């Protein structure tokens, strides 16, 4: 997984390497690895804090999220993420971190200033995707085996709705105005567009291509580009073919 830091053009990318237990720091101008940071075991989800001061990386097999100082490139703290953290998301104000604990069917909530655990919410089996509404009031977690998007009230820390989507939902993102939630289902090969108020799937995007067997089609991740390109959606086919493909909806 990759996150980017820096002003236009001169980007630094942080890449978590799940099998080598490192984070690569890449200068995207030179397209070179400028530093390799040793982290815990099985680094997966990776995000920058809102002020770009820290890079957070979930090290699943060490049951923690490590905090890397982006200036020094050193691991300076561990967050109490609970067991097997995978993906996570910061609240819009950057004060609270929500973590999907993949093996424990929970979402853990962490106070970023005090670096303490605030609580947890039980969700479906194999939680992964994490999305948060622009106002920070609704957190959405997708569970890859239960095949649901769980809507969580962040004040009450309770599930308020479950929406059944297609097989193996891996990524969830709100539209920047909060009017829609998009969830990509890897095995189902679809993106479900959900009305976050009525908690109903309003549209399903298929990526069927004539001549390509439907099994070859998988939707792993997608991204909402803020502003102008709000409806850009990217999917890619998974292993073993790894044929990358872009579609616009």
């Amino acid at each position: 997984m990759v996150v980017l830091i820096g002003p236009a053009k001169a980007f630094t990318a942080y890449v978590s390497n799940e099998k080598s237990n490192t984070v690569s720091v890449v200068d995207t101008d030179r397209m070179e690895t400028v530093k390799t940071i040793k982290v815990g075991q099985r680094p997966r989800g990776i995000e920058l804090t809102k002020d770009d001061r820290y890079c957070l990386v979930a090290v699943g097999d060490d049951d923690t999220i490590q905090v890397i100082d982006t200036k020094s490139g050193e691991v300076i703290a561990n967050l109490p993420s609970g067991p097997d953290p995978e993906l996570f998301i910061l609240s819009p104000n950057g004060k609270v971190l929500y973590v999907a604990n993949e093996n424990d069917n929970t979402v853990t909530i962490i106070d970023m200033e005090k670096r303490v655990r605030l609580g947890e919410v039980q969700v479906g089996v194999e939680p992964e995707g994490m999305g948060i509404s622009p106002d920070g009031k609704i957190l959405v977690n997708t569970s890859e085996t239960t095949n649901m998007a769980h809507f969580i009230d962040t004040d009450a820390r309770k599930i308020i709705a479950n929406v059944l989507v297609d097989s193996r939902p891996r990524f969830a993102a709100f539209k920047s105005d909060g009017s829609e939630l998009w969830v990509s289902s890897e095995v189902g090969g679809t993106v479900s567009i959900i009305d976050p108020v009525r908690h109903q799937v309003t549209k399903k995007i298929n990526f069927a291509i004539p001549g390509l067997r439907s099994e070859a089609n998988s939707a792993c991740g997608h991204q909402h580009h803020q502003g102008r390109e709000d409806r850009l959606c990217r999917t890619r086919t998974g292993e073993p073919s790894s044929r990358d493909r872009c579609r616009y909806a």
Partner: protein
Amino acid sequence: MAELARQGIALIVADLPADDLLKAAEAGKADRILFFNAAATDDRLRQKDCRANIVHTAPSRAMLADGLAQYLVWKKWVRWFLVVGSHERDKLFAAALTRAANRFGAKIVQQREFKDTGGARRTDSGVVQIQQQMPVFTQEAPSYDVLVVADESEVFANNLPYRTWDPRPVAGSAGLVPTSWDASNSLWGGIQMQDRFIAQFKRLMTALDMQAWTAVRMIGEAASRQNSADPKTILDFLKGPELALGAFKGQKLTLRDWDLQLRQPILLTDGRTIVSVSPQQGFLHQFSELDTLGYDRPETQCKLQ
């Protein structure tokens, strides 16, 4: 069966040999019980002995053999020395391997039987004897690329790798083994599955475990999407075009509506890693590449009833 039906049980995951499964299915017919065969790989259960109330999550011997054959042919190891155990199920697997060789263009240059004489006379003395006996057993074979062994009874196959007279790889019941699941599989979220299994049962997950899990997963998938526990509603959904089962195989799995066999990729493992996954690239099919494994619609002898 009637007693189970009285208790309200309508869905059964079975770990039974073929004949017992057929008896159970017959007995459960009147009460509309739907069976999920998680264990029996017999091709006849998908062919002339197929049943309208048995869904198969276990791959058939033909699917396993075809998955292996595609890889060996892709590797251009097309001259096979086939060694077969003396038990019935060894012979059934050998028949599936022979069919696969014919389908995909491999040649069986010689077939030998390894007789189970009881009490493992050839192997009781441990490595010293095995090391002497296996080269002798495999010598004077015609030129071959790979030794393919059918020994489902687990009498001798594991003694073949590294001990053949000619330095050749071993595949089939030992060496490179086709299977629905192996504990070494970390592809497609497999690690999550293995971790959860180990945490709960304190042991590694086998193919039979996976086949049983997949059966329960199918039931759960159908029940949650149809909002029903009725066996007919569940079977109709499973047979239909909307099933897209996620089972840690990197693609959606669906059901063959002509014999109720779950389409699935076949893993090829040496017990330490996943060496490859079939269907192999280039083995094409007009409907689903997974239908290059096992008995396809035009070949079926199944009449569901």
